[in-house]
């Protein structure tokens, strides 16, 4: 504590050039700068108007968003290792044998991890460039009414927007507004998201959206009144693809404007319309789109579900590159987290439906080939697999994912109990009991990694409250 206070003027001086941190307490929030955590469990909060800083008990703290969730030193590391407790360690795999894995992490240094703690490895997880990972902040997101919706007095007077950003998540608590963000989705893309709900509301997920506003109406008043108006989806997302999720029914919609400005909206036909969620209150959706081939494929919780073929539509305006969400006519809560948009190599990835109870699995980056057997080692950037027909030696750069047999991810019920979760950009989460922290580092006692020192310059969020607090009242508007 004394050391931290001595450094305080220096910290404030350095911090003045970067966005402030945000401390969210159980009863409010406070801007300032994260000063660290003492071994006694006090969080130090630095502000210009508090000479000696402020000190908070950890049990009052929900989370700290660092530098407006704009990390100083984004690692760019997409390669990561998933632990059985749900943690995700960003870093490069150095070696592995039957007992342990060694990785070099820009945020945690060299880590030695017992194999029993590892669920999977992802040396090349997306097969392409990462376009967006978040939402670590609300920056560049827009909460807006659909273009054709006249703001009603009620909507104008509403003090609480339908969407609220908190931690690394977006929360929907009812309201007509949509949530959207401009992006540059590539023509071959992966769009992944995690959804949690109480009672699942109908969700519209817009992608390749240009958010085009309806063209101005022409002609006299009578002609304007007779002109077709865009429906909710077109008014919300403009020229776009829309994935509609209603319970376990899913449909794909193309909406937008024809070249002459007339709005249109139509469903894309396919043979299947139902999906299977493993859990009743959460799901991971992944949309793989290849606009060149005209295909959209939906995976739910890692399993292939539905495939659509898009038709050529020369009469329609081209698609855009944004994403968005809407929950029309419903007030059931929804949480959206772990959003990711990345380039994709265009392979439909039959490998993802590959499963074997007793063998380790290797999925290659080409999206088709996959092998099973026992991972013998990783050495010199090569992975050796003892398979049923022969030993295979595969360059690590050709490996997308490795899943270890019988190692399931079983996240603890909550973080809580004095534990902290540190989130990194673009990927990464490490949990553990806090030992001490400074403005740019934290020392955790991880249940699986023992003591680990983290570089907080690439961190975006420190979360104290249990991640599953979605149903608790503290996140209510």
């Amino acid at each position: 504590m004394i050391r931290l206070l001595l450094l305080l003027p220096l910290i404030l001086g350095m911090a003045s050039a970067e966005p402030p941190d945000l401390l969210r307490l159980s009863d409010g929030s406070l801007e300032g700068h994260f000063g660290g955590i003492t071994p006694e469990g006090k969080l130090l909060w630095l502000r210009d108007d508090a000479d000696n800083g402020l000190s908070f008990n950890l049990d009052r703290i929900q989370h700290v968003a660092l530098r407006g969730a704009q990390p100083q030193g984004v690692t760019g590391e997409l390669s990561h290792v998933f632990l059985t407790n749900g943690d995700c360690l960003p870093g490069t795999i150095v070696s592995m044998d039957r007992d342990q894995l060694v990785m070099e992490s820009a945020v945690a240094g060299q880590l030695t991890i017992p194999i029993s703690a590892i669920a999977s490895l992802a040396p090349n997880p997306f097969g392409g460039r990462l376009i967006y990972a978040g939402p670590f902040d609300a920056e560049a997101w827009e909460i807006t009414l659909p273009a054709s919706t006249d703001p009603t007095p009620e909507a104008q007077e509403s003090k609480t927007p339908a969407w609220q950003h908190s931690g690394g998540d977006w929360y929907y608590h009812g309201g007509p507004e949509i949530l959207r963000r401009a992006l540059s989705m590539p023509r071959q893309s992966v769009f992944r998201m995690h959804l949690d709900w109480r009672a699942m509301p109908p969700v519209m997920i817009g992608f390749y959206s240009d958010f085009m506003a309806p063209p101005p109406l022409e002609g006299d008043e009578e002609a304007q009144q007779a002109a077709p108006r865009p429906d909710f989806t077109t008014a919300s997302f403009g020229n776009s693809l829309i994935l509609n999720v209603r319970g376990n029914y899913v449909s794909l919609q193309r909406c937008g404007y024809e070249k002459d400005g007339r709005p249109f909206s139509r469903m894309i036909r396919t043979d299947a319309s139902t999906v299977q969620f493993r859990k009743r209150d959460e799901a991971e959706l992944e949309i793989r789109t290849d606009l060149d081939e005209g295909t959209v494929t939906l995976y739910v919780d890692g399993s292939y579900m539905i495939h659509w073929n898009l038709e050529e539509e020369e009469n329609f305006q081209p698609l855009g590159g944004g994403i968005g969400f809407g929950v029309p006519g419903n007030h059931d809560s929804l949480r959206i987290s772990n959003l990711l948009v990345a380039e994709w190599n265009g392979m439909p990835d039959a490998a993802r439906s590959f499963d074997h109870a007793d063998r380790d699995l290797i999925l290659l980056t080409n999206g088709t080939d996959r092998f099973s057997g026992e991972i013998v080692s990783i050495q010199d950037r090569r992975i050796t697999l003892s398979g049923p027909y022969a030993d295979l030696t595969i360059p690590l750069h050709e490996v997308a994912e490795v899943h270890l047999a019988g190692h399931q991810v079983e996240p603890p019920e909550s973080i809580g109990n004095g534990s902290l979760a540190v989130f990194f950009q673009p990927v990464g989460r490490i949990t553990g009991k806090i030992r001490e922290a400074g403005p740019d580092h934290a020392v955790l006692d991880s249940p699986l990694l023992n003591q680990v020192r983290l570089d907080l310059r690439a961190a975006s969020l420190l979360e104290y409250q249990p991640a599953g607090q979605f149903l608790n009242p503290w996140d209510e508007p």
Partner: protein
Amino acid sequence: MTPKFSSLTSALMGLVAITASADQILLTDGSRLTGEVVTLDREQLSLRTPLAQEDLGLKLEGVREVNFPPPPEEWADQSARVVLINGDVFPCELKAIGDETITVNTAYSSPLDVPRRLIRSLQVGLQPRRILYDGPQAGEEWSGPSAWRVENGALISLGRGPSAFDPGSISSSFSLQFQLKWARTTNLEVYFCSASESPGPQKEDRYRLQIRNHRLRLDRQSSRQNTFDTLGEVPLNPADFPQSTFQLEIRVDRDRHHLKIQLDDAEVLLDAVDRQGIPEGSKIVFNSLINEPEAMSVGPILLRAWNPIRDRHPNEERGDPTVDALIDIDGQRFGGKILGSQADSPSNSVEIQTDFSPSPLHVPMDRVSTLFFCHSDEATGRSPLLIGLPDTGLISAESCHFENQQARILHPLLGELTFRREALRALARRQLPPEEP
């Protein structure tokens, strides 16, 4: 979701019972002729009939389909299936894989060499699916004798009411196949994966398939809920079934909680996932909702074990077309160069050289599921005629000439093929897009 019922594929792929010994020609105006088809080409069909002194020449544009007498049953259940780059499906027995060609056998032709570059996929190791039930037969224990009777391998409805059968525990994935015929209209409920023999909305875990005149609907009945949860619904158009019959196949994938309903072996009507999981019950219940007697018949009924994994592999994306690929029965997929195989050699394995092993992998033939061969982007080879073969085979043809119980078929990719005449199940015209100038 809206299916496109194709009488063409129904006729070619279906198991519509054709018992006549002569060829039957259905014309586009609904007229029928019987006789012996002598020749078919792009322009006309020649028919030999005792009613005329000379062969009749029919313009092919006036012919809707031709049904031949059914081929011998033992020609079904081939262990391999070649899918050509034009989509043709050729059931066969794999004899060998060479550098440039594969060699296959059939019961109705001499061995055929098929160039590897013309093959989209080769599925091997297909076993006759283990039959769990094949009936109904007289004297069997079907419940509900007042509502149904067993006659000529079918259940005949006598009025409203159910008839149920318990084939015993079905622990694996399975396929339930049955032929439905109706007199004026159809109104049938089929309960499956049921623990009870009673139809109705009681709380019970099972499925209810409703087949009504204009629609087909699949519901999940639950022991925890009062209502049916509809898994899918599709319209039916009675005009698509001029013979008042079709065959349905219900495929239940227990591992993936997946149900698929196919029409006449070809058209996927419904594709649904049951989030609650597949119920354990094994009873099958047919429930007539029509009062009048002999309104419907159900049969033959075939219940078979089914391996959904093998079915999935041929439909996988091809991936890089410049390399071969092998998928084994565990789902492993190896890209590389398939060096060859000798199906009747003692080793009986497929050799594939991958980038990840210094020597070729030897995958035992009984571990192989599907092979892909590298191919070029050649013309797709679509022709105006489609010919149905045993075991739901389907090939294109430019022409077909019959002589001495042989059929000489001019295939757009493979050239002239000579089959025994009995191998042909049906024939239909295919509408081709107009040729570009």
